[in-house]
């Protein structure tokens, strides 16, 4: 090792030492401030103001999250078991105005499911079995309805308020998402993207 190298090393060490000392001082200052803030609770407040990074939303082109739900009739439905044909998932609630408004259209697509080779599933969110059953009777819903009573599927699909409709192809890939009420044209597009039309 040459002199310059030694010097360089020494300078680096000195510089490193200065940086380290500097960092130590700052850390100590920050720690003291943090401690002071923590003692009176502000640190908690600060931390709790932070926004956490949300989990990835179910995106078009991504695999649809699998779920298993109890149906109104007591049976169960699992999304993966429907693999092999396109699936339309409609999130709704009996108390939701736009859900009720769009339900005749959802019902209409559901009745065409056998002929079209696809399946429509309703998922009731923030609701009770009794209320959903009554709604189902009243609206003569012609598709199986899963009860997401603990909001697990709703959260997995990141539903910020019903209605929402997901179009999934036969391989289980999300091909279209409609947050809010669907229109006939959007349904046509969604079905087409999921390989129905």
């Amino acid at each position, binding site marked *: 090792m040459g002199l310059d190298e030694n010097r360089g090393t020494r300078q680096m060490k000195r510089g490193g030492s200065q940086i380290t000392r500097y960092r130590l001082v700052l850390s100590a200052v920050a720690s003291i401030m943090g401690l002071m803030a923590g003692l009176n609770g502000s640190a908690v407040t600060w931390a709790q103001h932070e*926004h956490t990074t949300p989990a990835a939303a179910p995106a078009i082109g991504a695999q649809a999250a699998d779920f298993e739900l109890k149906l109104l009739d007591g049976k169960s439905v699992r999304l993966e078991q429907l693999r092999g044909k396109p699936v339309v998932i409609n999130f709704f609630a009996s108390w939701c105005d736009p*859900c009720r408004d769009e339900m005749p259209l959802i019902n209409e697509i559901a009745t065409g499911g056998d002929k079209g080779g696809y399946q429509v599933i309703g998922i009731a969110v923030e609701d009770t079995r009794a209320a959903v059953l009554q709604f189902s009777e009243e609206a003569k819903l012609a598709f199986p309805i899963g009860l997401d009573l603990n909001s697990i599927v709703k959260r997995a699909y990141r539903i*910020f308020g019903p209605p929402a409709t997901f179009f999934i192809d036969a391989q289980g890939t999300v091909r279209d998402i409609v947050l809010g009420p669907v229109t006939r044209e959007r349904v046509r597009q969604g079905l087409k993207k999921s390989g129905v039309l």
Partner: protein
Amino acid sequence: MKPRRSTVCLRIFTKFWLFSIALGSVIPAQAAGSGPLSFNAEVQLGRRSNNPSTPFLRLAPDERLFAVWTEDDKRTAPPIEETAAVHQHQAKMKMMPSPMRVALLASSADGGRTWTRPRQVNAAVEAIEGEEGGPRLALGKNNQAYVVWSVPNEKGDKTRANIRFAMEDGKGGFTPGRTLNEIKDTARFPIIETMPDDSLLIGWIDRRVDNPTPRSLYLKRLSAKGEQLTSSYKVGDGLCECCRLGIAFADAGKTVYMADRQVSEQQIRNHALRKSTDGGKTFGQPVEISDDGWQVSACPHSGPTIGRDGRGYLHVTWFTLGHSEKEAGIYYSVSKDGGQHFAPRQLVQANTAPEILHTTLAVAADGTVYLAWENLDEQNRAQIFTRSLAPDGQTWSPIQQISHSTANATRPMLALSKKRLHVAWTETEGETSWVSMRTAALDK
């Protein structure tokens, strides 16, 4: 060249000073007396086997705490046969759950520790709406209870509902429920308040004009005896169809403030405040509380709460997603000029997961604001959280989680006396629900 020791010290001091400023700008100061509250153990309201839900709390003039909530109506025995089999997927049902619910009322004279035997408010068998549109309660000067609730139309459609009203009959029961909205199947999300003159102000979201979609705000006045003082009358338009209303009074009832979630043509759902200076007869133009920019054509099902303190400040809390999910959370703002302007919103707590949250507040005379809301915990279960804001408007207490639900605790309601803060909420797990309540003694 080696810097001089004094230079290094100066640099460190400068960095420290700048760092302190930066840190200070993001850490709100904490004043004495704004620490966490000490809540007692949970008390449950209602009969657990009847799935209680949707509590609403009120303090009577005599300081008794009243609660109203709903439970399954056991008078409607479920049919045994397959009456519900309207299509192949519901065939072979052996038992049909009933949507019928009763509203129950009880009171506590010891700060929520023990409760009177619940009394049934509604005599009729009806599917009382819960959640965002649950029953509301007001108490007259003589501690008489008045209750409003919403029932779906004859087909069971909750979105085409009717507002029902009953009051204590002086004989230990309630008067028969009667419908308040004159136009059938048009009213939801009722609120009721006792005016300072002991008359009753009842409001709801109305859909008698069904197109365009945004709803109208209607009010109606009743006397303390329940007699009709006015027909229902419109005081506002452009309301979101599924979010509850907020209301507060000032000037011995001459001034009425109402807050609602608006919906624009672009489906942006900001909140607005309406002010009446003639006791609720007419209202001025709505003032936007915060330009959150949440554009959503779905149902938030989450309305605002407002309260007024002894200084005349108006305090508001609400949920919004804002312009993106990164802004989602519970927010708060204050107006110090009687609702003409609102301070920039403050984030009370950010969403921890994708979920529409529900928030409420109660305001002490000195300006201390108590908030309660739900958010998701680390296990993705909804829990109830509280915190308070000191009268200086800047000093927040730490956030406290006060529920420990194994499934979901939602929709907190508050009641505030000089001595105590009461928080009630609904817990749901699968097809069961129950109502929990906790009380904190205030050391003021």
